[in-house]
């Protein structure tokens, strides 16, 4: 047949301006008809040289930088950086500060997964209905963040040694009013999508990552858990007092896009459980320790990591007893999760490539820094 009909593969650009690439991200796909033969990613459209800039600012001045890497989960980024500096400088965080950090991190996880799961549903074509429902709840979380830290998206709330401000008075009642509404919306979204034949046909057995490849490719987060590996840093290497909260981590069956979607939905539920427990047992006391303005940690290096909504977000800091870090490196989960992009997309069609990209849940600010 191929002698009669001659076809040749051509290179098609998906992105950087595309409704579905979650930011300025480009995939150069070599396609033959609708089948992808090769996929190569091109990044760097949002490179802002944060790692170099951080070497010229003090440790506290670097906290707003970390907001802007993964702009959809800024509280988590702040938390990871503050943990790294506290590890380097051996600073203790009081219990109230830790509990507040946990509440903020889990609320941020819910907000980020609202966006991630919603955008994934959008990619499969569910004409913005599930994402609108999730966005409505995410707006409430952003209002809570604004009430506490002053900003909706790039919160700059965590400080080295604790958090910036204490919780306002109406915080607890707002969060407690929000939790049942969020649970209802999660049930609604799950009911609309998880059992839907068309959604299952689109997302099942698409972009499969077997578990050996997942571990070898340094994946983390919902991608690793989707392949059946029970690895969550909140359980394996607890920080900020996570060991005292009772929650479970969801893991998938075969590592396809559908598994990652249901994991994200379930993680939202578990996060709400943690927020409730943290609010119930919120201790009194100071919300942060006193840290000198010109913090000069002793010479050394530290690597601290947290479980951000996208995976393992790590910060590697090297200090030379100066006021600014000697080396500041962010281990971006989205970039490393993209290691398997070629294996996931080659052999499928373009529609599958979009679904695969949506299931990784990338944020380009984190990829390019």
């Amino acid at each position, binding site marked *: 047949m191929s002698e009669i009909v001659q076809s040749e593969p051509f290179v098609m650009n998906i992105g950087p301006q595309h409704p579905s690439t979650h930011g300025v991200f480009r995939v150069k796909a070599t396609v033959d008809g609708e089948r992808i033969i090769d996929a190569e990613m091109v990044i*760097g459209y949002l*490179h802002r040289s944060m790692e170099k800039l951080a070497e010229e600012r003090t440790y506290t001045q670097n906290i707003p930088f970390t907001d802007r890497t993964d702009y959809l989960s800024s509280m988590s980024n702040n938390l990871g950086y503050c943990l790294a500096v506290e590890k380097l400088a051996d600073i203790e965080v009081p219990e109230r500060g830790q509990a507040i950090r946990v509440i903020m991190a889990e609320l941020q996880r819910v907000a980020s997964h609202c966006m991630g799961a919603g955008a994934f549903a959008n990619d499969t074509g569910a004409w913005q209905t599930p994402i609108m429902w999730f966005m409505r709840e995410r707006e409430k979380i952003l209002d809570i963040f604004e009430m506490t830290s002053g900003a909706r998206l790039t919160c700059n709330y965590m400080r080295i040694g604790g958090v910036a401000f204490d919780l306002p008075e109406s915080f607890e009642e707002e969060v407690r009013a929000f939790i049942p509404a969020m649970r209802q919306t999660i049930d609604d979204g799950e009911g609309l999508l998880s059992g839907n034949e068309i959604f299952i046909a689109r997302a099942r057995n698409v972009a499969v990552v077997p578990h050996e490849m997942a571990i070898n490719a*340094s994946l983390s987060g919902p991608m690793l858990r989707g392949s059946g590996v029970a690895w969550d840093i909140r359980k394996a290497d607890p920080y900020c007092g996570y*060991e005292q909260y009772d929650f479970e981590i969801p893991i998938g069956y075969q590592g396809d896009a559908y598994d990652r979607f249901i994991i994200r939905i379930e993680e939202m539920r578990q996060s709400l459980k943690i927020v409730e427990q943290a609010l119930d047992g919120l201790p009194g006391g100071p919300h942060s320790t006193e840290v000198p303005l010109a913090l000069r940690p002793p*010479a050394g*290096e530290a*690597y601290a990591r947290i479980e951000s909504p996208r995976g393992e977000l790590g910060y590697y800091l090297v200090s*030379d007893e100066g006021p600014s870090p000697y080396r500041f490196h962010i281990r971006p989960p989205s970039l490393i999760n*993209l*290691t398997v992009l070629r294996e996931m997309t080659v052999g499928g069609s373009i529609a599958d490539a979009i679904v695969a990209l949506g299931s990784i849940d990338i944020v380009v600010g984190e990829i390019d820094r």
Partner: protein
Amino acid sequence: MATKWWSGAELAAAAERLVPGSVARTSETACALKPESALQTFRALRDDPETDFVHLTNLCAADYWDHFEVVYHLQSLERNQIACAKVEAWEREEPVVPSVVDIWQGAWIQESEAYDLFGIGFEGHPNLTRILLWEGYPGHPLRKDFLAMPGGLQPGLNEFAGTSAKPEPPVHPVQ
């Protein structure tokens, strides 16, 4: 149930046990391996059931004026332990370090990034391109002598801005 963070001495002991003579230097938090036997050591560290470092968590590089260091954070999921290994490259102009892509597939993007920002060549890497910046970009930005400023000033905040900057490079941070 916290992760066991291996000290430099423990990793050096494990590396010596698996591949004798592979350790160059040991510090408190990390262990530097010799570049010639680095690949063999990494493979042994990944395959040995006691260490079981199957997950390469982080791969980054740092510039210490007289040498470059490529830092590997290795992690074992079953045994829940993490260790920090390093490979040093003492060339200034075009340093070369063996590539671990064959051992851990997750290294290939991070090694490309280290090549892009530092100029460290990884031999054995299938497709070493400048992924964040473009081909033909002058220089490698994260090197300490990039943007060498006039007046003998160095980038990096040695004092608060506004005071005089030290002309000599700062103290070696990791001994």
